[in-house]
């Protein structure tokens, strides 16, 4: 089962917590539990260690509670790393840490212009050779054009339409070259059309499971790792021959993130 080629990056949750509010999920009155957070993260790490070739762990930094969501560090494409330019000031200080990590591993760092926001693999997901990219709440559509022109790849821009699904990876999950999970209502009508026209097997997930972040899935080969209690989507996945690994990530959902947000696929 082990997919040796897959390399992931994670960040341990020592400094994780709800210390500010930058999305509809975060509430200062609903803090996360540090011990439970660590236990949930460790369980996820163990599952991924089993499935992926390598799971790197970057050292967390104090004062950067969301650094645990490494999906937003940037977008690695081949030897390039498109370093995120976070929209919110609270997360902007994460970038120097990620830049250092990727520089040390020989990646070419690409930066976006000052007024062009881009939040990494949180808003940019490959389905085959095509990059599906979300915009509106966090990333700027102009970032998509820059990536398309730099990489010479097709980038399909999808406008998000529900603040609860503020990153593309909260409502869209490519499974392989032809299938993807998505929550239709998180997109504007044009984006829905683009998904339907470009994804051969677009699996619409029900609202209650979308709200449990079923689309925030880590896909490693034929394995899908998600937060627990999403029976209807699990059925769709198993029917297509995927192995589903459910794990409790409720402490991270309090901050608006789940399995996928906690990982960044490097290769």
């Amino acid at each position: 089962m082990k997919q040796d080629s897959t390399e992931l990056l994670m960040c341990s949750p020592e400094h994780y917590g709800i210390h500010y509010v930058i999305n509809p999920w975060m509430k200062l009155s609903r803090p996360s539990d540090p011990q439970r957070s660590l236990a949930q993260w460790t369980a996820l790490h163990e599952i991924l260690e089993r499935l992926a070739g390598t799971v790197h762990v970057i050292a967390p930094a104090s004062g950067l509670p969301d650094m645990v969501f490494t999906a937003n560090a940037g977008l690695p494409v081949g030897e390039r790393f498109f370093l995120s330019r976070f929209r919110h000031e609270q997360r902007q200080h994460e970038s120097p840490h990620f830049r250092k990590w990727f520089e040390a591993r020989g990646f070419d760092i690409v930066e976006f212009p000052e007024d062009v926001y881009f939040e990494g693999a949180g808003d940019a997901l490959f389905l085959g050779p095509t990059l599906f990219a979300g915009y509106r709440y966090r990333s700027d559509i102009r970032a998509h054009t820059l990536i398309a022109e730099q990489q010479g790849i097709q980038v399909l821009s999808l406008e998000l339409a529900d603040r609860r699904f503020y990153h593309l990876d909260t409502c869209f999950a490519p499974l392989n070259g032809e299938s993807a999970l998505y929550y239709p209502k998180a997109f504007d009508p044009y984006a829905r059309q683009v998904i339907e026209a470009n994804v051969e097997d677009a699996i619409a997930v029900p609202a209650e499971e979308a709200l449990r972040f079923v689309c925030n899935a880590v896909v490693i080969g034929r394995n899908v790792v998600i937060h627990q209690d999403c029976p209807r989507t699990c059925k769709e996945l198993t029917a297509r021959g995927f192995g589903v690994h459910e794990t409790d990530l409720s402490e991270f959902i309090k901050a608006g993130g789940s399995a996928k947000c906690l990982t960044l696929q490097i290769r």
Partner: protein
Amino acid sequence: MVSEKVLLSGHIIDSLILPKVLDEITDLGGTFAIEEIHVGRTRRDTSRACIEVSATSRDRLERILERIKRQGAVSVEPGEVKLVRAPRDGVLPEGFYSSTNLQTDVQFKGRWIRVRNPEMDCAVVVDTKARRAATVPMSDVRKGDRVVVGEQGVRVLPEKRAEETDEFRFMRSRTSSEKPKEIMIHEIAAQMKSAKRRGGKILVVGGPAIVHTGAGRYLERLIRKGFVDVLFAGNALAVHDVEYALFETSLGIYLDRGQSAEGGHGHHVRAINAIRAAGGLRRAVSKGILKKGVMYTCVREKVPFVLAGSIRDDGPLPEVITDAIEAQRAMRRYLKGVRFALMVATTLHSIAVGNLLPASVRTVCVDINPSVVTKLIDRGSFQAAGLVTDAELFLRELSQTLTGS
């Protein structure tokens, strides 16, 4: 129409961004013209489109631009305004920008600054220290003034048309004598009231036919009731008004009887002489020589007036400004705050004042001759609406509507 060019690039066709932007423009009441489009040849190539977005108001255009900005549409920068110093007093540099009577902005040091006192056929002078811009008539330009040259960095913001505000429903189309006058006069009255309510001033530009037709008393009533804040006229209106006040005649005809007075043909010059002897209209009022009439009422009610001279004038009256450039300057001084201009029975003064007015001033031109309004509009005062009727009938009805008498 206001327009701005935007550039859209990326996978704008596969991502349906181009159709979305075009839909958004039309949904928000704008229109578009695709000036240039380059479509990528393969799936990997990006495409680009240059789109001119237009809307009927600046506000609407800004709303559209704000919305499509989210789709990555970026404004094509207009560039800085170009300034060249005036070579001499009263002389403009080659290629100077000739202004319109519309609200205009110039891009200076990265910011749009509004050009003060919109007036057609002027230069735009930028005070680079104070970062201010204003129209300046050619004759008032001083050597060294920084004058806008060319069209770059200049944007003109057209007025909303009457259709948009649903005002002047009956006055939308071109001048016609075949329209219900009473309804139109009621609309004019409503406009005047609305201008006053909003703290605006009303300007009346009048010709001597106001006096000849016996409509002077209605104009007096409007002045007394506060519906006239400033009066522009020539020598003739004042002269015949004074003639009537002193001799009961206008051009030698008794206004109450319609009969000519003996030696009446000389009344107007005698009237001029009397006022000159008194030292002017104001002195004649204070000395008790001038006791009624339009000019008397203006002096009494402290309504300022500008009398501009012409080559045909008799006299003229001492208050008449015979230097045409000086007269223009005097008129410009009183245009500040004017929101409504009513032009009655005067061709040349209507056109002269029309040239000085910003297009934002609601303008109504009343004349027995339809060509007067046409001329006014053809000379650039396209905001003017026309009413073809006799001055007496018009002012009587207007005064009744506004003052109840």
